[in-house]
C-alpha cells in the first residue's frame, strides 16, 4: 500500500509536534523515520496509524482518504515501543487476538486461526513458546511476538515504533538483520521509527530525517549520509566535527588554516559552518601547505581496524575527533602529547550570507 502524507500539523498544547509535514511512501518500501527525541517521528507514525488525530492535513492510503477512517478499519499492523503484549494472555492468544476479535461473519474458524498462529510463530521462529506468558519471555522474544501479532491480521502497512530501542546491543543487531530479511520476504510497506542512525542506515530503503516537527531530508541511506541537505542532517548522521569560520573567495578560514569549499548556491561570503567527518581528516607530522591545523594528541583509542584520535587544537583548544586506519596509525607512530597537523580532505560547508 502506498501512503501519502500531506501538510500534517499536530500540536500538543503549546508544543508543535508536526509542522506541515508531507511525505510519500511507495508500496512495498521499508522506510525509517530518524530523528532525536521530540522530533515528531513517533507522532507522525501514530497519525498514520490513526492513534492520533492531526489538527490539519491529510493521510492517503493508495490515494484514498484515511484520516476519517477509524483505526480499526485502516488495516495497519503496529508494533509498540514496549511491545504492549497482553500480559494475561499466552503468546498464542496474543497472536490470535486480532483474528478472534473479528466480526463473526469474517472471522476464520478455530482450526484456521490455530494454523495461522502457528504459521506466524514459525515465521518469527518462536513456535515453541506458544503456551508461555509475555512476562516469561526475553526482550528480543517479546519483540518478535509483537511483530507476529501485528502481522496476524494481514495488514497492508506495518508500523514499528522504536522496534529495537529496549534491547541490548547484540540482540538489536541480530533483529535488525532479521527484520530486513523478513521485509525482503513478505514485501509489506513498512515504516519504523528510530533515533539510532546506524539502525536507520542499515535497515531502511529510504531514510526520513526529522527535527523539531519537520522533515529535514528524505533519501536513500547513501544520499543522506554522503550528501546531507542541512547542517542538522550532517551533525545527526555519523561522527562529525563542526568548525565555525568565515567563508570568502571559495575558502573557509578556520583558525589559521584555510580550507577550499563549495557550499553550493549563490552565496559569495558570510559566516560558515564546516562539517568534517572523523574519517575525512588527514593527520600528519610535518606541515604541508596552509590547509592544516596544528593540534596536540590528547587520547588514542586503538581498538579494531580503525583508530580514533582525540586532538586539542593549538589555536583555541577545541577538540577534534579523527579516525585513521591501522596502517596510517602505525606509520605515524603517534603518542599522547605529540604535536601534529590535521587537515580536512573534505568538508561540507553551510554559509549564512550576511
Amino acid at each position, binding site marked *: 500500500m502506498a501512503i501519502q502524507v500531506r501538510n500534517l500539523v499536530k500540536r500538543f498544547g503549546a508544543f508543535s509536534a508536526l509542522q506541515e509535514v508531507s511525505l510519500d511512501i511507495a508500496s512495498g518500501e521499508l522506510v525509517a523515520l530518524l530523528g532525536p527525541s521530540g522530533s515528531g517521528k513517533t507522532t507522525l507514525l501514530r497519525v498514520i*496509524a*490513526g*492513534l492520533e488525530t492531526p489538527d490539519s492535513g491529510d493521510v492517503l492510503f493508495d490515494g484514498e482518504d484515511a484520516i476519517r477512517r477509524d*483505526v*480499526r478499519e485502516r488495516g*495497519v*499492523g*503496529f508494533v*509498540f515501543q*514496549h511491545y*504492549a*503484549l*497482553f*500480559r*494475561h*494472555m499466552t503468546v498464542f492468544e496474543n497472536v490470535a*487476538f*486480532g483474528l478472534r*476479535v*473479528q466480526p463473526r461473519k469474517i472471522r476464520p474458524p478455530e482450526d484456521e486461526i490455530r494454523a495461522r498462529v502457528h504459521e506466524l510463530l514459525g515465521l518469527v521462529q518462536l513456535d515453541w513458546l506458544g503456551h508461555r506468558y509475555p*512476562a516469561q519471555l526475553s526482550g528480543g522474544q517479546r519483540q518478535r511476538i509483537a511483530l507476529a*501479532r*501485528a502481522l*496476524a*491480521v494481514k495488514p497492508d502497512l506495518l508500523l514499528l515504533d522504536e522496534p529495537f530501542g529496549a534491547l541490548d546491543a547484540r540482540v538489536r543487531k541480530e533483529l535488525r538483520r532479521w527484520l530486513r530479511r523478513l521485509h525482503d520476504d513478505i514485501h509489506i510497506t513498512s515504516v519504523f521509527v528510530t533515533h539510532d542512525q546506524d539502525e536507520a542506515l542499515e535497515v531502511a530503503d529510504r531514510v526520513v530525517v526529522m527535527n523539531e516537527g519537520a522533515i529535514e531530508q528524505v533519501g536513500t541511506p547513501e544520499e543522506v549520509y554522503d550528501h546531507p541537505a542541512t547542517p542538522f542532517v550532517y551533525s545527526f548522521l555519523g561522527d562529525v566535527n563542526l568548525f565555525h569560520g568565515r567563508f570568502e573567495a571559495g575558502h573557509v578560514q578556520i583558525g589559521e588554516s584555510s580550507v577550499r569549499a563549495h557550499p553550493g548556491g549563490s552565496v559569495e561570503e558570510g559566516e560558515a559552518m564546516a562539517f568534517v567527518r572523523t574519517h575525512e581528516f588527514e593527520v600528519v607530522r610535518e606541515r604541508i601547505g596552509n590547509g592544516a591545523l596544528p593540534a596536540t594528541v590528547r587520547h588514542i583509542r586503538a581498538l579494531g581496524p580503525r583508530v580514533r584520535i582525540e586532538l586539542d587544537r593549538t589555536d583555541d583548544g577545541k577538540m577534534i575527533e579523527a579516525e585513521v586506519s591501522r596502517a596510517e596509525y602505525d606509520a605515524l607512530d603517534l603518542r599522547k602529547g605529540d604535536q601534529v597537523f590535521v587537515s580536512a580532505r573534505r568538508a561540507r560547508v553551510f554559509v549564512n550570507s550576511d
Partner: protein
Amino acid sequence: MTASVAGLDRSIAVRPRARSTSEPRVVRWTLIGVALVFLLLFLVVPLVSVFAGALAKGFGPFLRGVRDPDTLAAVRLTLLTAAVAVPLNLGFGIAASWAIAKFNFRGKNLLVTLIDLPFAVSPVIAGMVFVLLFGAQGWAGPWLRDHDIRILFAVPGIVLATTFVTFPFVARELIPLMEEQGTEEEEAARVLGASGWQIFRRVTLPNIRWGLLYGVILCNARAMGEFGAVSVVSGHIRGVTTTLPLQVEILYNEYNFTAAFAAASLLTLLALVTLAAKRWVERRREDT
C-alpha cells in the same frame, strides 16, 4: 511483574540478616512483645469477647437471638442494601477510574478529589445531607410527599446513604492500578481491530480483575457494617428499617445482651470472612 517482585522479596527475606541492621536481642524482643500485647488487648480480646458474650448463656439463647424475626429482617435488609450499593459502586468505580486513568479532561483533578469526599466527611454528616435533601422540610421533600414517594426512614434512604459512604472503595483501588498499566495494551487491541466492548472485556477487565475484586470486598464489608449514615436516615423502625448494625444497638440499649451479641457475632463473622477473602485475593494478585 508483580510475581517476580514478590519472588525477589522472598529471596531477600531468607538471606541472613546483615549485621548492620540487626538490633541487640533485648531490643528485638521488647519491640515484638509490645506489638503482641497491643494486638492482644485491642484486637484479640474484643473479638473473642463478642463470641463469648453471644454464647454466655449457652447455645440455645444464642440461636434464639439469631432467629429473632427482627434480627432476621435486619439481616435481610443488610444483604439487600449491600446487593444494591455494591454493584452500583462497582459500575461507577470502573467508569470513573477508566475515565481518570485513560483520558485527559478538564476537571479531572476535581473528580479525583470528589471521589474521596465520602472518606473525608463524617458518615453522620452524609446522613444529614440526605435528610436535608429528602426530609419533610428538605429541598425535594414537598415534591416527594405530593407523589407519595418515601425515601427517608425507608429502604431507599438506607441504600442511598450506604452507596454514598461506600462510593470510593472500588475507584480508589482501580485508579492507581489502571494508571500504572497505561493505555498501550488498549491501543494495541484497537489497532488489531477490537471494538470498545471487546477491549474492555478481553484486555482491560482481565488486567484489573484482582484489584477490582479487592475493592468489591472492602466495599461490601463497609456496606454491611455502616452505622452512622444509615442511623440518621433509617428512623429505627424495628423489623423494617433497621440494618444489622442498628439492630445490635437497639438490642444493646434494651439490655438484651445475649441477643445483641448474637447479632454482633454475625457481623464479626462477616469481618473474618472478608479478611480471609482479602488475603486470598492478595495472594492471587501476587501470583499473576
